[in-house]
């Protein structure tokens, strides 16, 4: 069981690099969905105890929402906006990958510094969580398209979710569902906003959003 978990964790780390180096918006949306999907099934595989009904329900619903529904929403927004590529990123792709290597180093270093109390499901999970969160923040800052910023936000959420996994901690079902609903509606509203940004500016470059300033 544990070797599968290790492999999946490495796959998630690789998805982060794929996201940092990808210029295709569609690829970004798909990859972040795969990342979320893997993270949704991890608690079932990595859980120390038996597989409870609670775990299964959460894994199923979060997999369905993050793995299928949200990418579908974003793809639709992109289809309507007729946009497929990130043309001019604020930070170049090669440099983004180099930053990625630095970030993963930082994540391993940070996770060694954190004095973790209690048990940890898998020692790789913590650096993975930190790496995914930092990459997400990096994507939000370093990419100019509204869609890539949403992808960055989803990466951040994935990273935070992975952090929760580290302690095999489950929230009460009602709270967990509320969180999923929030993230889903967030992506839904952002999708509508992207559609409107495209209609208003004929582009989804957030660099055009500079009318409001002091």
């Amino acid at each position: 069981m544990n070797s599968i978990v290790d492999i999946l964790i490495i796959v998630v780390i690789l998805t982060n690099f794929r996201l940092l180096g990808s210029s295709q918006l569609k690829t970004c949306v798909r990859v972040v969905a795969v990342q979320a999907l893997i993270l949704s099934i991890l608690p079932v595989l990595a859980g120390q105890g038996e597989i409870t009904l609670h775990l299964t329900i959460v894994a199923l619903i979060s997999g369905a929402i993050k793995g299928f529904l949200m990418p579908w929403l974003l793809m639709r927004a992109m289809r309507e906006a007729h946009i497929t590529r990130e043309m001019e990123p604020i930070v170049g792709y090669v440099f983004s990958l180099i930053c990625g290597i630095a970030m993963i180093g930082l994540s391993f270093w940070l996770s060694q510094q954190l004095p973790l109390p209690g048990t940890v499901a898998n020692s790789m999970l913590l650096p993975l969580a930190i790496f995914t969160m930092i990459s997400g923040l990096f994507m939000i800052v370093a990419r100019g398209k509204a869609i890539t910023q949403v992808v960055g936000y989803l990466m951040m959420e994935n990273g935070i979710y992975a952090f929760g996994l580290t302690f095999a901690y489950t929230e009460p079902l009602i709270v967990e569902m509320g969180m999923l609903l929030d993230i889903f509606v967030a992506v839904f509203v952002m999708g509508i906003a992207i559609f409107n940004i495209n209609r208003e500016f004929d582009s989804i470059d957030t660099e055009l959003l500079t009318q409001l300033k002091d």
Partner: protein
Amino acid sequence: MMILALIGIPLVAALLAFVLKNDKLRRALLLSSAIVHFALVIASWLIQPTAILNNWLVVESLELLFLTLTSALFLMSSVYAIGYLGREAHKAELSQDKGFLFNNAPEANFTGCLLMFLSMMSLVVVSRHFGVLWVAVEATTLTTAPLIYFHRNSRSLEATWKYLLICSVGIAIALLGNFFLVVASSNLSGESTILTIDMLIKNAASLHVSWLNAAFILMLVGYGTKMGLAPLHTWLPDAHSESPALVSALLSGALLNCAFLPILRMHSLCMEAGQGEFSSSLLILLGLLSMGFAAIFILRQVDYKRMLAYSSVEHMGVVAFGIGIGGAASFGALLHAVNHSFTKALLFLVSGNILALYKSKSTNNVSGVLKVLPISGVLWLAGFLALSGMPPFGMFLSELKVVEGALNKGEYYTVALFLLLLIIVFIGMAQIVLKMSQGSPSKSTEESFDAEALKEPWTAVIPSALLFAVVLILGLYIPSGLSEMITKALAQVGM
């Protein structure tokens, strides 16, 4: 039951508003739900509502204080909304700023989101579980985003996008803070009670201190983004200036306070765990920083709604500062939150009247408000005096209490800085407000005046006038019921 009704009635009304076809009926629904909600809150003053959902949702003094603020402001805003929606309905017009076409969003969506916003704010206030609290705060972001985009133009779209992205990222950081809190409490047993505030406070001594402090930082950053604390306030001036006046009033008067509650609860947990000095110093630092940022940006402001927005940053800074100082200052801080809510809602609603007439947010295009809008003009000027802490208005008393508390602690230098920043903001705002109020409007502006706005319809001035009366009363004396409530609320968070 009472708590369920406070959250459920606006939610059901919101769903109804989405499907109702008749505009008049929908407006009546908005107003009646606001009245029912307010009546329920008043009833909760008399009868203590019973806690529900494993004691996750509780109404005691602190919750009741913030519920009252939220509900009262919502009632005033919905009276304003009735007139506003009637005037704006199916109206597409050119704004004087750069000639943008105003093409408003469907009214059903607007009303529905407004009611859902009320429901979610009530949930934020009453929840005693950090997970539920997080869900509710994020939900307020999502329900307000369509409200900000009511005027469908590129400026409000930009404001909406920034608001959505910055606040969502901020609140994601707060979620990480939640998980840190789970780690901090890993010694405790009982999974179902793990993020409940009461349980954490009771076992505060056995929490892991370093993880607790880290959780406090993350939540301060996360919810502080939503509360408008510098340097994460950047979305606030945009969102507050581009949304309709009644939405700005609610965002500034009610939502910022709601975002402050989780920070206050975390601070009380830190104090209980013996880390009060650490969390206090951070609150003081961010408070003064917010006041500083606001002072800089108000001085060279040319947009009067942005000026009000920066003033919200300033006053949230005052609240954070007061809570950070503690003692008598924390009484002042909560009183200040109350005063700020009423005063800022008053000013934002009046700014809507001015905007409706002049069709410009630039201070260069607005003059002679006192002459053409006698009621709004007087309220605008009086509201400004109240906002800058002049006697005989409420903020004078609350700022005095904050200063008194800080002096008692011997914080002479910080008090000096605090007063200096208040004076700078006063000068900056005085320049703008006095210029707008006095003189007479230029010929070209006068020709473009909206005949309806010139008449000052009652829905546009009665809410502001009532809010003004409250601010004035709070300045003349602090009702014993209120001061008792604040004292009890502070005792509840261990201050």
